């Protein structure tokens, strides 16, 4: 590969451009009219405006992105996360136009993007899955299925993501109400009203396993990430490894992830998501067929550049890593720093970044597209940057993160820094004792 078009914006666009620079690969940035002053535009070798500010007219404009790739002679397109990264049609169109889509095949995206089919596939491959139903189309079916599984159950959208089209039902009444709203939400969000049921796992943790697969059947895993600290299904703090996973469980969950990935002949970087209950049982939820926001913590602990691996694998190289060589070192924590008012229900509050001080020193990493004087456009997500801290163990990583958060200065906009400072000082967090309910409960009992 000699020239890659980066079909994204913000910090992940910079992350990809950085990897390309280090690989001596040229980059083409694409940008909306709202992102003219963005760093990804400045840093790329070429930059092409692809539309007005709204994402659907720019970062989701398949035509303009493919035209930019062709006009500027790209060999490949890196979609980052979000936007077109899990769009099978886009991957197919890339192939049809002679462009390498840096990710898995369109068929794999298609299969794994359909949660019900993905679950079926994994179940057949021997990966533990949450007991659940097939796609349900009417109220009689849903009641029957729920009673078979036993309450509480979760209603989930087949095409879902980000918590949309998802409802918890503790009884028949909640089930019937939730079934209709979940279908309506799913239709609105994904143009697909297919929903299914899953047994609800209480006090569960959200654990995901990073995998890499090549075109020739080799697959490795790079351990797990703990992503239970979520607010309304949005991850806020992640760590690698999980404080709830010991070496034996890591081996087992890693083996299950590899088994599932091999069953679909997966190529590229991907993430197998699991729920982990308090007895150490784990259940496959879904597979993400893209790079994750939180990939840096795995990179810090395993010493592997995942973006470069994606690029290498997409260009047809063999996986250069063997499972026995992939030895985790220490611990890493990531805090997503958003421009949100934590005292006003985390309402996004874009503005212009004033004074900026970025912490440095041993084990501190900052992945961000903001700079002093940068006007954050109101059209996109509220993430300002990702602060990552590595330590020789969890305690050192957490203390280092607190030190770095205390140093970080972002003037001019409200940020979630105080939220992170408070959570990281919480004794339950320090003890590693939390599930996916932690943040919502913590926010209720804490005065920020």
């Amino acid at each position, binding site marked *: 590969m000699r020239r890659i078009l980066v079909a994204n914006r913000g910090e992940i666009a910079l992350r990809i451009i950085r990897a390309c620079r280090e690989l001596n690969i040229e980059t083409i940035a694409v940008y909306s*009219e709202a992102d003219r002053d963005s760093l990804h535009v400045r840093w790329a070798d070429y930059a*092409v405006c692809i539309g007005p500010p709204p994402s659907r007219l720019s970062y989701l404009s398949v*035509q303009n*992105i493919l035209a*930019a790739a062709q*006009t500027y002679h790209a060999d490949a397109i890196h979609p980052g996360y979000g936007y077109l990264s899990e769009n099978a049609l886009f991957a197919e169109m890339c192939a049809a136009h002679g462009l390498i889509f840096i990710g898995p095949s369109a068929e794999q995206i298609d299969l794994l993007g359909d949660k019900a089919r993905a679950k079926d596939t994994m179940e057949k491959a021997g990966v533990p899955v949450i007991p659940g139903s097939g796609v349900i189309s009417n109220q009689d079916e849903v009641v029957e299925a729920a009673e078979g599984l036993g309450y509480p159950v979760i209603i989930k959208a087949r095409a879902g993501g980000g918590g949309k089209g998802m409802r918890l039902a503790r009884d028949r009444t909640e089930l019937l109400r939730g079934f209709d709203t979940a279908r309506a939400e799913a239709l609105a969000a994904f143009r697909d009203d297919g929903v299914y049921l899953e047994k609800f796992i209480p006090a569960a943790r959200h654990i995901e396993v990073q995998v890499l697969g090549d075109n020739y059947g080799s697959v490795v895993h790079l351990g797990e990430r703990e992503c239970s600290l979520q607010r309304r299904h949005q991850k806020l703090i992640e760590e690698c490894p999980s404080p709830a996973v010991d070496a034996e469980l890591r081996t087992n969950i890693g083996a299950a992830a590899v088994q599932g990935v091999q069953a679909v002949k997966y190529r590229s970087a991907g993430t197998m998501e699991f729920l982990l209950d308090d007895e150490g049982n784990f259940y496959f939820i879904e597979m993400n067929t893209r790079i994750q926001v939180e990939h840096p913590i795995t990179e810090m602990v395993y010493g592997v550049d995942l973006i470069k691996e994606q690029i290498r694998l997409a260009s047809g190289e063999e996986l250069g890593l063997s499972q026995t060589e992939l030895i985790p070192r220490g611990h890493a924590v990531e805090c997503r720093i958003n421009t949100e008012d934590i005292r006003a229900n985390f309402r996004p509050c874009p503005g212009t970044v004033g004074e900026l001080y970025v912490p440095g020193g041993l084990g501190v990493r900052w992945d961000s597209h903001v700079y002093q004087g940068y006007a954050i456009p109101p059209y996109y997500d509220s993430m300002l940057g990702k602060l990552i801290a590595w330590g020789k163990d969890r305690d050192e990583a957490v203390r280092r993160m607190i030190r770095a958060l205390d140093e970080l200065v972002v003037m001019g906009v409200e940020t979630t820094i105080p939220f992170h400072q408070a959570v990281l000082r919480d004794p339950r967090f320090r003890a590693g004792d939390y599930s996916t309910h932690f943040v919502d409960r913590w926010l209720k009992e804490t005065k920020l």
Partner: protein
Amino acid sequence: MEFKDIKELILLVNATEITDFEMEAGDLRICIRKGQGDTAPIQVSPQDPALAFSDVGPASKGSLGLEAVVAPMVGTFYRAPAQDAPPFVEEGDVVAPGQVLFIIEAMKMMNEIEAEFGGVVEKILVANGEPVEYGQPLMLVRRQG
């Protein structure tokens, strides 16, 4: 910029009726404002040293009657329907609304772009076969009628 230049700028602003003057050196940004109404055009006599800045400032579309025709999509700019065909328009041509001005090729599709209003093609800003991005000014047309 030297100190005497800054001093001269101050005197200049003082001597004129300009109330607001901003500039940035890196990548040159100049901003001249006058009065509270904001819309009144800046009046400069040809003898005035401030005239030089009027060249630097972007031509106002409205006051000069010029409008830019911008690319509605990303692609390659073509002035003619085929390699050996004559261009759709030349500088100086009078064009009618709906008349094809140029083609943008995107994903092997030839997209003919038509004039939205009638006028005179004053300037063609992009060479044949060049890549263009969304919103890029391609032609300046003086609106007529």
